[in-house]
Structures are given as C-alpha cells and as structure tokens.
C-alpha cells in the first residue's frame, strides 16, 4: 500500500503491482481516466501531468516513486467544474478534433502560461513540441494558446 496526492486529494493505492506506471494508476486505480496514454515511452505527451511543478510524462513515472509528490492532472485544473481559460480557448479556437492529445496539451499549456505569461510564437511551439497531435496540424492549437495568453494579458492590464 502507498499513498498519492493527486489534485490536492490524498489517495490510498492498495494491492497494486509495484511496476505500475503513474499513468496506469491514475487511470485504472484512482478513477482519473482524463490522462491518456498513446506511446508508453515519453514521445507523445498525451499523458502529461504536473508533478511538483514540473510537466512530466506519467507513463515514464513509476507510481510507487511518486508518493511524496504533488500531482496535478487535467481533472484537477479546475476545481469548480467550470472550464479553465485554456480549456475554453482550445474549444473556441478549434484546437480540439479527436481530442486524444488534448488533456496532455491542456496540462502542458497551463504549465507554460503559469511559468511564462507572455510566450511568443516560438516559445509556444517549443513548449508544446513534446505533445503530438495527429489531427489538427497544430495551427488551431497555436491559435488557442495565443487566445488564452492574450486573454490573461488583457485581464492583467485591467
């Protein structure tokens, strides 16, 4: 038995095989299937979560080693159930097609904008270059990130 802190909630993980990835435990044991798996080797970013302030691929993290970490998944970005600014921007700017890469991208973009509220085009591209999207060709995803960035900037200017 071990414990994980996910989205501010303390979870008990019982009877788990020690080799399970954080991705598997989130999805199959903690009832948090929002985090997706698509490559199992840290190439596609679908499983991105934030662990102690760093964006990581949860498929590469052994769950049992994450016991002392503060973990945030896509389900934990908004505590009241309302979409966040980034989530709303992705829908409005057309950044969502099949949606499989979306949760990982949403987490990655939140992480980007929290660290750097003013990323230029190249900084945005670099920040999400570890998140593969097969549907959109990225154009509307860039637009979504720029929309969220500009809205935050406008809020701050007020």
């Amino acid at each position, binding site marked *: 038995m071990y414990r994980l802190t996910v989205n501010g909630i303390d979870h008990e993980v019982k009877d788990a*095989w020690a*080799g399970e990835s954080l991705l*598997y435990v989130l*999805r199959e044991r903690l009832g*948090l*299937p*929002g*985090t*997706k*798996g*698509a*490559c*199992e*080797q840290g*190439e*596609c970013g*679908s499983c991105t979560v934030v662990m102690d302030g760093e964006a990581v691929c949860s498929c590469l993290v052994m769950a049992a080693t994450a016991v002392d970490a503060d973990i945030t*998944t*896509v*389900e934990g970005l*908004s505590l009241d159930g309302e*979409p966040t600014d*980034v*989530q*709303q921007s*992705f*829908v*409005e*700017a*057309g950044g*969502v*097609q*099949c*949606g*499989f*890469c*979306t*949760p990982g991208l*949403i987490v990655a973009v939140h992480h980007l904008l929290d660290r750097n509220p003013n990323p230029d085009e*190249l900084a*945005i*591209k*670099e920040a*999400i*270059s*570890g*998140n*593969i*999207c*097969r*549907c*959109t*060709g*990225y*154009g*509307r*995803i*860039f*637009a979504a990130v720029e*929309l969220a960035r500009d809205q935050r900037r406008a809020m701050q200017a007020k």
Partner: protein
Amino acid sequence: MNATTSTRTRGALGSSALRPDGIPKVQGRFAFSSDAWADSMLWGATLRSPHPHARIVSIDVSGALAINGVSAVITAKDVPGQLTYGLIASDQPVFASEVVRYAGEPVAAVAADHPETARRALDAIRVDYEVLPPLVDAEDAISGSFTPIHPDGNVIRRQRIIRGDQSFVGDVVVEGYYDVGMQDQAFLGLEAALALPDDAGGGVELFVATQWLHEDQKQIAACLGLPIEKVRLTLGGVGGAFGGREDISLQVHCCLLALTTGRPIKMQYGREESFFGHIHRHPARIFMRHHADRDGTLRRVEARIVLDGGAYASTSSAVLINAVTHMQGPYKCEMATVDGYAVRSNNPPCGAMRGFGVVQACFAHESQMDKLAAACGLDPVDIRLKNAMRTGDRLITGQVMDSVAPVERCIRETAALPLPEPLPADPDPLLIPGGAGLTARRGNITRGIGWGVSIKNLMYSEGFDDYATARCRLANGVATLQFATAEVGQGFVVLAQQIARTVLGVDTVLLEPISTAIGSAGSTSASRQTWMSGGAVDGACRLVRERLFEHVAATHHVDPLRLVIDGTDVVDSMGTLRVTVAEASHGLAFDETFEHHHRETEELDENGQGNCHVAFAFVAHRAVVDVDTELGLVKVVQVATAQDVGRVLNPLAALGQVEGGIAQGLGLAVMEEIVLENGRMRNPSFTDYLLPTALDAPDVVVSMIEEPEPQAPLGAKGIGEPPCISVTPAIVAAIRQATGKELSRVPVRPLDIVFG
C-alpha cells in the same frame, strides 16, 4: 482566414459552431474507448507471430492456463463461426492456424485479471514454428515465380486502363520511376474496446473505436457464428482514425473472450502493437511516361503502378482502382495506358489511409508535370494551368467529369497567396532545418518552392451503395438526432447539429449515442460523411419539417407550401403568420428516418472504362522549404493552398481539416515511413517512427474555393482527404528546386539529399 471571429449566431450552417464534445474533451471527461470500464472486467491480450512467414507446427497453451489469474486462452480452434474476415474479401484469419503470413499476425489471445498477468500468459504460450522464406518483393508476387502464400493467390487485383491511340508518341516525352514508402495512420488513441457478454450468454455488446459500426458488426457476427442482432455495437470515443480503423483489429478477439469467459473484456493495444494491429498506407512503385505536344499540352499518360498489399487483401483492390483511375491527375488527357497491380506479400497488410491510392498516384504525376514543364520550357504553374481539367472533360476511364472542377482557380488562388518572408541572416535555430539540434549553418541553407495539384474522388466507387441513415425527432422545440456515423474527430457531431438548426429552426439539438441501434451510415472515410450522413440528417430534418408545416398549416388554415423557416420561426411567406418552432411543436412529436444514397456507379471493364466514381474534389498546394544541403535537413516553411470545397459549412472545422491534412502530407514527404527489413518492421514506436511536431508545422495559408456542388445535398464536397494529397509532391518539388536532386521517393531522407 480568421475563423475564430466568424459568426456563431445560433450555430447554423456556415457558422463556426462549436463542437458539442469540445468541453468534455478539454476537461478529460470525454470517454474514449480506452476509458471504458466495467465491474469484474478482465484484460485481453494478443499473441502475435514474430515471423513474417512460417508454418505453425504446434501451439501449447497449457503454460498460460496454469498462471494464476488467467481465465481463458483462445486460438483458431475456438472460433465458433467463420474463420476469416475482411472488408472486401474474407481472407484474413481471426487467428492464424496453419500458417502465419506476416510478422505480427495474431495467433492466440488471453484473458487475465491484470494487463501484466496477460503479458506473462502470452509469454507462456509455446508456439512451434517452421520458418518459411518470406515473399517481400512485390515483383516476385507478380512474376508468379513464388508459390502462392495464400489460397487466393499472390495478386489481389490487376486493373488496366486502355484509352485512345496506344502507339501515340508525343513531341515531348518524360518518364521516371517513383517510390512511396509505407506510411502509418498513427492516430493517437490506440485501438481499444470493451466487450460485455449478455446476461443470457447468447450475445455480446461492444464499445469500440471504429470507422464503420455496421461493417464491424457484420464481420464480428459472422466470425462468432451469431445472428447479427446478437452483436450490438456502440461507438466508444475515437482518438483519430485516418483509415486505420476501417478494418477489424481486436473486435472479434475481444468479443470471443467475453463470450468464452462470461466476463466483460477490455482490450487495448500499446503503440508497438498498434503498428502490427492495423493496416498501413500501401507502399508503391510507379513508372510513368508523359507524352505532350511541344507547347506542353498533355496528350497521353503511360503508367505501371504496383501496390504492396501485404499479407491480406483489406481494401487493396479499391485502393488500386483509385490509384489507376487518378493517374492523369487533375489534367485533361485523351490517351492512356495504365497497368496496375495490388499484390499479396509477407509484409504487413495495407489498406485505407487518408488519400486512398491517390496519394501514391499524385506523387508520380506531379513529379512528372515538373519534368514536363522543364522539358517544354514552362514553369510549374504554367504547365498546370495549361492542362487544367474542366467540368465536361472526359477522364481516362471515359467518365465525364460532371463535378464542379475549379482546377484553374485552385492554382491561381494558391499562386496569389503571399509568400513567406526570406530567411533572416541570423535566424533563431528553431526556425531552420535541424531545429533544436543546432546542426544547420545558415550559410548552407537554400530555399525552394514547389507545386502540387490533385484530384480526389469522393465516396465509394464501382457500384458500391454506401448509403447513410439518420433519424430526426422534433418535440417541444427540441430536435434529437440519431445516426451511426462514426465521429472520429472530424466534427460530424457539430455539423449534424448545424444542419438541424438550419432546417428546423431549433436551437437545441440533442444527439443519441452513436450505435447500431439505427441503420448504417457507411464508413467515416472517402471524404464522404458530410455528403452522405450530412445528406441523411438533412433529409430526415426536412421530412420532419414537412410534418411540422402540415400541422401549422392545418392549425392556421394556410397552404403548407407557403411556410418557411426563418431563424427559429415558422413563417407564412405570403402572409402574416409567424410562430416559433417551439410553440408550433409544443406537445407534439414528429419522428422521421431518411436514407441518403448517392447516384449509382459502375465497375470498370477490362480496359478500365466505366463511370466508377461518384464525384471529385480538387486542391492546389505550393510549398516553401529551407534545406541544409550539406546535412540533408529540411524545414517546411510554408504551405499555401486553395481547395475546392463546394461550400464551407463550418469555417473553423474546415480549416482544421486542411491544416491537419497538410501536416500528414508533410509527414509522408520528409519524415514518416515504416521501415521494413525482410518483412519485419524496424521502427514500430513513436521514438523511431517520426511524426510532425509543433516545431515541424509549417505556416499554412488557405483559400477556400466555394462553388457549390449541385450533386451534393448541402452543396459541400468532402474536404478530409484532398489536403494531404498534393502537399507531398509540392514539398518534394520544393526540395528538388533547392537542391537540384532528382528525389524520386518519399519520404525524402537526409541521405537522399546529400548523396542522391
């Protein structure tokens, strides 16, 4: 194109209405098939052959059954019904029994209490193989020198096209060989399904990510030996498809394990298994010879095209028909000699992928058009304008082009789009070839521009009636739609709502689950669902509207033919009556179902003549690339495109299709290839199979050409496939211009640029 600011008023047709699954998807609440879960479910897993060709001497499953937590192991002898399946020919075994024909072919499946237990069980199955020499060269399959590797033979289909003077020789003749590598659909959401056995044990319910529920249902029921109504399918959320989910993968295995164990079974592939578990784009070798007058007028095309279908037929015969019938490209051409083969080999099976045979044909014909331009002293734009096909022209199949055919406009509007700024003297390394690797030197970078133009058929061909069904119910001002159209990411769910809002004047449109509870919608492929399922939803909504108008007319004593929908009101076009749809339908329910069929098509005759296609769409691409000529690295800077779309029904969704298709065509041009070595895949992972990332994405500038298509129910052509077709040859042409190399294969590799 500033899609996000266009009107969203009411979310009617023509607006960038937002997709109803958008918020659940961004919040991680949308249930993909891999998220399906049931109490007491077991995990299924598949044992696959490590050999591309081998005889199975024996299979011993006792070691697997002895493992604690393993509930079932099944092999070919446990298949209760038909032992094979397939989209066109039923030639692929559910499990290999006597012989395996490709590396990765399923041999057995297990059900266990944990994915890791299932993996251990697979390891414990002993299969004794007698390894056979694999047939891996398509020409060996054609030559007849290799013993048939399948009872259906080594040639899946041969089709010729013979038209006009077969001895004609042009003033100008150009020729070449062209090769296309094996591309993977690489949808992000891996194959996954959950099968639930009936309480009575007689049937099964399957939640699955697929492109065509009813075709899956038919094939699964046959293999399970069940009546079709005992197999019910509901679409699990689909994480992309691009053709790769048209064939059966884990469906039969998952259902059979559920019926065998009496427990819910979850199956999902990992990425490596996904490369083995679905079909790929056909690798192709094409010879082409173009004959033209001295002024560049195209007169005759000769072509020989060989598609390697791999071990099983899948849709190879239809892919071949697309390839041979599109060899002329979007150009007028009166004479043709085309010979095409789709062959069987011990390579991985190939089938549908976005572009479906036309991608391969286009790389060859567009490379040829550039050669022809050079030989005639014309530039790439002028040779294409000179030969641009028009409505009324006759194709090399004898079929008259009766679709709207704005080829010339596609080219001219693409040419009018702005070119990118020149590369600065001291660019950010991320903007140049090699990117963050910091390998390229500014001084070694050369810029090139290239062109590609294409024609693509829409819907299924050769007599296939791929109809679509939809149902509409209107009650108390709310419309409810039902259809079996697979939503794979393209956005049919929002389009269906837009249609209902427009036709019925409602604001709220609910969607029933996508399942086999209603008639077939056909496949989400062939750029067909906007036209076909869109036509079905439109038809069902119109039938309901007629009933509504009859009711309003009777209530208000007016002629129903005078009634129209205006916004959310029913209005008497010749009087003063105006009543909201909500009021007019209060306390009532109108319920109608409609099937949309496209016009009939014909099979090709032995000379490749016949009206085999329904309709066509066109597109032009201009690519700008920067190439590090010393290292052979390429950065695609910009792609400009003008696409013939008929009518834009949702600007934001249309733009997403265009940009997404371009990225996939870029992948084929310079990155993506399944590398085979004697029938074995060398790179079945996202580490070794390279996909375009955000830093590889070019700037895309788009012009949508809206000339409504009279044949199409909504005036709109399918837009999914054209974006990925001619962008590939455009990028390669740009690299040729930058390097002076011949570059006759895709993907273009650094070695091809440096040493080619």
